[in-house]
């Protein structure tokens, strides 16, 4: 019985463990000594961990994902080479000052740490789009549309009548649109910036159609939206190009690889910081 109680007492001692905090090895190794005070590896590590290391953690994890999904091959190098050439042409004599200002000590560092990584990231986004095309179409609902935006209700009504009577949309927009929307055909997705009701009309359309007057009562503006292509399969390459340049989408694709890769954090301070500033990357 005494043995059992001792065992249970030992187990009890192990309870109430606090959250995990990762420690660097050789914490007591002295980096330098001033007078009687020692600056240790552990002390410096603690300062690092208290100075918001989350961004570095995300960057390191991203690099692991990139190296697994997009190995650095001839295509990636060619893309990075082209970017390097463009940067040198742009900055000319200031090129060295430019990459130093970006935090890179040498051109090689800039090439490997920035240009190669950017090329890999772009390729990863591309891979994500290809691998998840059907889901993306269902979620982003890309459509080709034309828009007239006017502050005069009657002009919107006249525009609709003329278009229905066969007038050219762009010519009609030139007459009635009072803003940057000049009736040019454009691709929109559910993440595009357009007045919400107008965007909903466009992305919900299942066939080419023309809207009635859509009113933005807050800003006192009126929209006429014509959906020209509602079948995404007819402009797949253009859709991919649109999504590729969408920074929100790029991050979303990266986040999906964090989830797929089982990103798990074993340090409470890193976890708390990520929870506050990079919550979408966490799955635990």
């Amino acid at each position: 019985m005494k043995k059992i109680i001792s065992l249970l007492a030992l187990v009890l001692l192990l309870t109430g463990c606090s959250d995990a905090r990762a420690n660097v090895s050789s914490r007591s190794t002295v980096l330098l000594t001033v007078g009687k005070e020692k600056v240790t590896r552990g002390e410096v590590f603690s300062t690092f961990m208290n100075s918001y290391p989350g961004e570095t953690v995300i960057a390191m994890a991203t690099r692991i994902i990139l190296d697994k999904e997009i190995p650095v091959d001839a295509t990636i190098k060619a893309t990075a080479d082209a970017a390097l050439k463009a940067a040198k042409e742009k900055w000319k004599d200031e090129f060295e000052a430019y990459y130093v200002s970006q935090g890179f000590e040498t051109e090689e560092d800039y090439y490997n740490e920035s240009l190669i990584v950017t090329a890999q990231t772009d390729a990863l986004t591309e891979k994500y789009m290809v691998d998840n095309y059907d889901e993306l179409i269902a979620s982003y609902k890309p459509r080709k549309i034309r828009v007239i935006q006017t502050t005069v209700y009657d002009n919107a009504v006249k525009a609709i009548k003329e278009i229905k009577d066969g007038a050219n949309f762009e010519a009609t927009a030139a007459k009635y649109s009072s803003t940057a929307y000049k009736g040019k055909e454009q691709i929109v997705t559910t993440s595009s910036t357009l007045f919400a009701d107008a965007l909903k009309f466009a992305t919900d359309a299942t066939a080419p159609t023309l809207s009635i007057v859509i009113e933005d009562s807050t800003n006192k503006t009126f929209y006429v939206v014509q959906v020209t292509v509602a079948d995404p399969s007819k402009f797949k390459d253009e859709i991919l190009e649109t999504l590729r340049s969408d920074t929100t989408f790029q991050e979303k694709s990266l986040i999906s690889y964090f989830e797929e890769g089982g990103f798990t954090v074993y340090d409470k301070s890193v976890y708390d910081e990520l929870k506050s500033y990079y919550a979408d990357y966490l799955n635990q």
Partner: protein
Amino acid sequence: MLETLKKQWFVVFIAFLLLCTVVFFVYDQNKGKLPGKSVGGKDVVFEINDTDVTADELFEKLYDRSGITAIYSAFERAVVEQGFEGDTDTLSAIKLEAKNLTESTIEQYKQYYQDTYEEYIAAALRANGYDGFKDLNLYFTNSLKLQSMIKTYLLANLDTYYPAFEKAASPRIVRYVVIAMDDVAKPTEEETKRLKEAQEAWAKGTYTFEAFAKEFSEDSAATTGGYLGYFDINSSSANGGNYDKDFSAATLKLKDGETSGWVKSSFGWHLITVETDLDSLKEEDDFFTALAGHDTEKTHVRSNVVWAAAEKLGVDFHGDAKLEADLKEFMYLDEAE
């Protein structure tokens, strides 16, 4: 064995109950806690794609990015805590000011963050190499000790630093009088009357500047004879400072001991007088702050002070030549060498 268990069934039953209780207690206590992970004796910070990234690897990456800054912070703190050589009076003044700064900082954080103010103060202190909230007073004490060390160093090296600073910044001590107006372009009858009375009184030439300020000036500085304190070219709003540009321009034009004529600013009308002699400037802590901050890319006063004190205490890099070179480069000491 079975016979024993049957005989002692009650003891076994109690032991079983205890075991269940402990298992539940262990589960309950650890529920929601972030688990840790070690690989080959090294702590893991995170894993992804079956790749473990250890604290050692994160340390190396962070060291590459900002390691020398963290090491310098720890180095400077060690130097200041051991190398401060101020007398008892200076130390008492520092302790008092640190106490006041600690209290006012806590008040400010309390107003902004309410119940969570301690967490925010602790986070800021930890990012600077301190242990947490309890070190707030120590943080201010060290900052003030360093200020004092810089002042001592500058006093001993004024010949080196002051001439260029004087030429570039026009340092001076300022006293002023203000006849305040809500809209100086359209003064009220009352405001115009007060200005006229002041101008006539000053024109008699019977007042000292301080006495005149005490009697006629219309803000809180009147009680100290119009004392404004340290002022230089960077005090002007035209250069990012806090003072009206017309007031500043008039102030900076004056030579030592001169008093201006009546000067119009956005606050009203002023008389201004300045002292520019070095003995007067040396009485002002703000003078030393400005002097230490002047042209830091060339002068590196703070680094020089810290390094001089460190050498006196003795510095040992334990054979790490790269760390020594990196720290000296960070402190601009490599340029001197």
